[in-house]
């Protein structure tokens, strides 16, 4: 038994943590320099990177809650990994400060003059105002912080206490959490992304952002699992059966993302009302059209056909490549949502990279801290043995 427990808690080298910390420091410092050179570019790059990592953290929260809610068995061996990816989520709240301090530069509706001269925006001013925006932002992160802490605390307690009541408690938290999750994620997407173009609205927007966020999380999990295995860690615990299951989910959510993206487009295209179509028009002009095509093919068509055959889901090399690809495409997706509000043509900036690396360094540092501070799987979970043996 003792041997088994040490197998679940290998000595992980601190190199990944050092790389993450280094990336965080260098990325954030360079981004800080960017702030003084071009504040607007900095803000939009910052928002893109921040939303990118926040959505991945939210995807992890969803993974854990879904696991508890449905009483899943196959994913017990992956649960701790998702729990570790959640650690970074509440921390990201801090990075919203630069945006809160420069609201008028990022969100035009927060300019009193713009608001006053615009009939449509005046009508929305009860919702779109800086104090309420800030309050909502705080509320989202409070909800996420509470959910992440509760789920992680119970999970830690379970490692030393095999009482079934903890499983039940995590399930109760997840039941309430799932409802809160749907509301907070949707409104966060409305606030942070949709309100960049405050005239425009789409009710499916929250689901669209959710689809991308869970897809990116799955891609990241695939990469982590395969990376650990290539170092011989958990190689008899997380098997190719789990790879297969993850691959199936990745395939399913590729379709779900495409379904949501197309549903949003179809209704707006059909209705053909200028105040709705303008958003797609911005993204179908000049170089943005290229970006839209890259997104359609990169986020849907290519992964769809690559992940289609059954055998591919058990090929580590292909799964690694498609995992990286989907993570890149998720960034293109967020970039495509944010940047047309700043640039009329696609205009990549070095700050897009530094902010992504900087915030990602912090996010992943918290991930590796979780990986190193506790066993890599929930060792007392009653479904663990079944999970290890589970067949896809």
């Amino acid at each position: 038994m003792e041997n088994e427990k040490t197998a679940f808690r290998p000595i992980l080298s601190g190199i990944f943590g050092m790389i993450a910390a280094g990336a965080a420091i260098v990325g954030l410092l360079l981004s800080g320099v960017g702030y003084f050179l071009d504040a607007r570019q900095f803000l939009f790059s910052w928002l893109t990177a921040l939303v990118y990592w926040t959505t991945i953290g939210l995807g992890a929260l969803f993974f854990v809650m879904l696991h508890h809610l449905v009483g899943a068995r196959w994913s017990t061996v992956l649960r701790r990994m998702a729990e570790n990816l959640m650690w970074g989520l509440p921390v990201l709240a801090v990075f919203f400060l630069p945006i809160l301090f420069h609201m008028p530069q990022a969100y035009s509706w927060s300019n009193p003059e713009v608001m006053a001269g615009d009939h449509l925006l005046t009508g929305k001013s009860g919702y779109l105002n800086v104090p309420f925006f800030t309050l909502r932002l705080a509320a989202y992160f409070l909800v996420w912080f509470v959910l992440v802490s509760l789920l992680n605390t119970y999970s830690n307690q379970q490692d030393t206490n095999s009482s079934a009541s903890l499983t039940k408690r995590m399930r109760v938290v997840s039941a309430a959490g799932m409802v809160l999750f749907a509301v907070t994620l949707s409104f966060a997407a409305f606030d942070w992304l949709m309100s960049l173009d405050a005239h425009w609205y789409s009710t499916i927007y929250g689901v669209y952002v959710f689809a991308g966020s869970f897809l990116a999380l799955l891609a990241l999990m695939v990469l982590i699992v395969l990376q650990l295995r290539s170092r011989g860690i958990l190689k008899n615990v997380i098997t190719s059966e789990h790879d297969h299951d993850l691959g199936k989910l990745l395939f399913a959510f590729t379709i779900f993302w495409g379904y949501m993206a197309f549903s949003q487009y179809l209704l707006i295209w059909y209705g053909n009302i200028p105040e709705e179509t303008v958003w797609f028009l911005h993204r179908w002009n000049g170089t943005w059209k290229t970006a839209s095509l890259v997104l359609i093919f990169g986020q849907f068509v290519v992964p769809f056909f690559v992940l289609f055959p059954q055998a591919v889901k058990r090929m580590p090399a292909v799964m690694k490549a498609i995992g990286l690809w989907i993570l890149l495409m998720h960034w293109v997706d967020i970039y495509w949502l944010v940047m047309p509000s700043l640039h009329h043509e696609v205009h990549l900036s070095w700050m897009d990279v530094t902010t992504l690396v900087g915030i990602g360094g912090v996010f992943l540092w918290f991930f590796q801290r979780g990986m190193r501070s506790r066993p890599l799987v929930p060792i007392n979970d009653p479904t663990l043995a079944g999970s290890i043996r589970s067949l896809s």
Partner: protein
Amino acid sequence: MIKLPAGNVLGLLARFDSPAALVAAAEKVRDAGYKKFDCHSPFPIHSMDAAMGLKRSPLGWIVGLAAVVGASSGLGLQWFASTVDYPLVISGKPFFSFQAYVPVTFGVGVLLAATTALVGMLALNGLPRPFHPVFYAEQFSKASDDGFFVSIEADDPLFDEERTTQFLISIGGGNVEALCRD
């Protein structure tokens, strides 16, 4: 219908205690070289396909083909109706507005694929099947309750009533019963 004389053995049936025992037995029957055998359990057992040495079903390819045919005929129908047969301007959009055709294309593709999956599955596994030698065994009603059975049919080239009976006993089968016509 040809009437077989009573006492003609159509196969053998053996009972096992648990799903795990049934999987282990299936592996041994497979390794012994029997082809015409089947396993019966009240519920699906996850690793049974490999244990019985079943090949992957060709159904996926058939369904895939049906999906392609369905989707292209769905799209083709809409193209024909709105550009050739009865062109009509709808809200100022081009006659061939593929965006509007996606839901129907998808729907017809799924419809044909799903019906093909059902019909193809029935055709490939030979259901519904009103007769099978195992129905002669009284204990077989347990297969829908708590019994796990292996049956080997008499027209398997390796089948020999005595030796196959001994074999089934040797792999742990209980209540080994010859399936005879009454």
